[in-house]
């Protein structure tokens, strides 16, 4: 068999010509999306209001800053707090692992909105007690309450990601490192974690995206994040473009992150591809 024949065989089957039903349907559906997108663009152009933009664009920018700082603080605090929780989940001690299991089950089994209410309104109802302890300044601020609830929530999810990633590394890796005389912490740092990161990267990226999306919730407890400012702008102007703009901003943020995570994943698994 000559080379040209082999190439001819390996080629994928040619695309169907003409207008099969699937193509008509596909073009129709894409057409609907194009119409939809064009409709939104047309609406934004038609409803273009320089005053609206001048008035609310700075508020949106400031809200974006609030959203980003809320998410990044919660992610970092959650990552720190997820370490003992993940340790508890993997521990052989029944009490410790039971406690960690209950923690994770509670925070993954209840809606984040309920948890946020529980912190902001629920803990807030113990005002006299909190004042005597001197913690009232913290739970008075909606932003801090949001950070508190979000950190606890993401800690539960991140603990599971961490546990899954560490347990995905085969036992032989631990045993091999132990036989070389590395102690446990060294093994974790030099042998297990580099392999676990590859597994954990995608779930961590997803968790970050979920947090950005979920952070819109704090708008309900009167934090002026991106969504909060959109709510305010809508309440003042009754102009639906308040929500359209905010949707575009969230969509762009999520897409950038998603592609960024994919890019990093390609980079760190480069040695696994042929």
């Amino acid at each position: 068999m000559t080379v040209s024949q082999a190439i001819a065989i390996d080629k994928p089957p040619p695309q169907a010509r003409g207008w099969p039903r699937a193509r008509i349907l596909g073009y129709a559906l894409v057409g609907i999306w194009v119409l939809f997108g064009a409709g939104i663009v047309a609406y934004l152009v038609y409803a273009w209001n320089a005053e609206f933009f001048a008035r609310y664009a700075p508020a949106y920018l400031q809200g974006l800053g609030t959203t980003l700082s809320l998410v990044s603080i919660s992610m970092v605090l959650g990552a720190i707090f997820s370490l003992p929780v993940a340790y508890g989940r993997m521990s052989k001690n029944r009490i410790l692992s039971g406690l960690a299991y209950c923690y994770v089950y509670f925070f993954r089994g209840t809606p984040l909105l309920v948890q946020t209410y529980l912190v902001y309104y629920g803990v807030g109802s113990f005002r006299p007690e909190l004042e005597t302890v001197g913690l009232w300044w913290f739970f008075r601020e909606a932003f801090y309450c949001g950070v508190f609830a979000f950190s606890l929530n993401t800690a539960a999810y991140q603990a599971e990601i961490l546990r899954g990633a560490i347990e995905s590394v085969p036992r032989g890796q631990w045993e091999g490192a132990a036989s070389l005389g590395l102690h446990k912490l060294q093994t974790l740092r030099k042998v297990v974690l580099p392999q676990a990161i590859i597994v954990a990267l995608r779930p961590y990226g997803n968790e970050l995206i979920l947090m950005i999306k979920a952070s819109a919730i704090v708008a309900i407890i009167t934090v002026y994040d991106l969504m909060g400012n959109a709510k305010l702008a809508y309440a003042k102007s009754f102009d639906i473009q308040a929500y359209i703009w905010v949707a575009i901003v969230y969509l762009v943020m999520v897409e950038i992150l998603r592609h960024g995570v994919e890019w990093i994943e390609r980079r760190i698994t480069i040695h696994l591809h042929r």
Partner: protein
Amino acid sequence: MPAQSIWTLLSWGPDGWSDDIASGVLVTIALALATLPIGLVIGFFVAFAKQQEEPALRLAGNIYTTVFRGLPELVTLFLFFFGMPLLLQHLVRLFNPDATIDVNGFVAGMIVLSLIFSSYASEVFLSAFRAIPKGQYEGGYAIGLSKWQTMRLVVLPQLIRIAFPGLENCWLSLLKDTSLVSVVNLAETLRQSGVAARVTKHSFLFYSVAALIFLLLAVLSSIATSYILRHLGRREAR
């Protein structure tokens, strides 16, 4: 306010709030159960479109999942809750100039949750589609089944079994997402607990009750799904 004991507050009847919260729980369950079939059907067809050879169909499916997985649930909800009446009003006014449209919170919630649920479910279905070897289709065609028959009799039974654990996760997050509809004043569990909390000033108590109800719903659904899974497994063994 007279000091009421916790048990009075949680009792059933005019003094307590259990009956109000229970009606909210029913709304939550109804909303989730009404969303489930719609979301499953849309999700299945989106996944079906995404694994076709026709690029236009794949593109349409990809736009769908990108948009509805990328938007925060709350933004989607507000866009539909406030935007849909505007749009419908414009359309209706073409025929009947003085009609007004009011969108029901339940319907808006159902539409939005179906969109979100279906975009996540479509990813689960898609990976299940990819797990089914091509030989299954070819075998179906070889014994003379039509495309539709192959899908229904050969592929679908395997697909459901493979997709089931992923769909269970989608269902659990759907249950949690129903709480978001409380912000457009649908009287579901969280909304009713919030009313109770505001009236009685026992916020911690009532929001804890709401959290426990959601936990209970999650536990009940995992019992139900493990039962279904056992049932599916038995069919496979035969």
